[in-house]
């Protein structure tokens, strides 16, 4: 059980790292949003899956219910995270934050 859990947690941590690096490296707000909103939600779903599997190691009714709860958090993240990303993007566009474009595109 714990080996399978590690198999999920380690890629999750990798994607968390990618998301954080993305926030720091990308040139403007919209591109940062790409890294933050999605790499992070995918990574957290992976880690949550790993924790749920690890928790099933000693199988009782209580631990099964706790694992289902953890999976419910994952489902919640899957609905809530794109919604939040969408809300932030829309308000940025409305307010008028300029997106970073390639130089040859800017002239058009």
């Amino acid at each position, binding site marked *: 059980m714990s080996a399978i859990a590690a198999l999920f947690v380690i890629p999750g941590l*990798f*994607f968390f790292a*990618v998301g954080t*690096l*993305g926030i720091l*490296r*990308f*040139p403007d707000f*919209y*591109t940062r*949003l*790409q*890294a933050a*909103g*999605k*790499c992070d*939600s*995918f990574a957290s779903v992976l880690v949550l899956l790993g924790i749920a599997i690890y928790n099933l190691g000693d199988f009782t*009714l*209580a631990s099964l*219910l*706790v694992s*289902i*709860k953890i999976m*419910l958090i994952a489902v919640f993240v*899957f*609905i809530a*995270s*794109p*919604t939040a*990303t*969408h809300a932030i*993007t*829309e308000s940025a*566009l409305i307010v008028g934050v300029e*997106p*970073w*474009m*390639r130089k040859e*595109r800017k002239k058009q």
Partner: protein
Amino acid sequence: MSRMATTFLAMLAFWIVLSGMFDGFHLSLGILSCLLVAWFSHDLLLSVGPIRSRIRDFFGILRYLPYLFKEIVLANLQVAYIVLHPRMLDLIDPSLVRFRTSLKRPISKVTFGQSITLTPATITVSIDDDEFTVYALTRSSAESLPGEMERRVAAALEDRR
């Protein structure tokens, strides 16, 4: 009425998962709470319509999920490659894409929009009637829209009449 009953059953399942205690005190209070929530927000969880089509929607989404997961994993690897690449600015080419969709029902539009946002390199910016505005990170991701995903969503959720 059937909406209220369905909401009550969903709430009861959620309560049992949350609570994990099956003595009389907690179970009776749980049923009371589920009744309260079902009475208060029965028209929030499910939209108007026959209950059969709601169940069909549910299974349609279930059939759509494996494809979505595959797409998410692939797209995440792509974004990871972009982020870790030393000369990142050469790889990205952001643009705003606008296109019309053939999806009719609101739920399928929302599912499609959320799927676009969940697969990295694209974000749904706004949905006006049937016009989507999508922010795309790379040129290839911009060109692939609407593509296969829209067809899958249509197969899962639209009426086949």
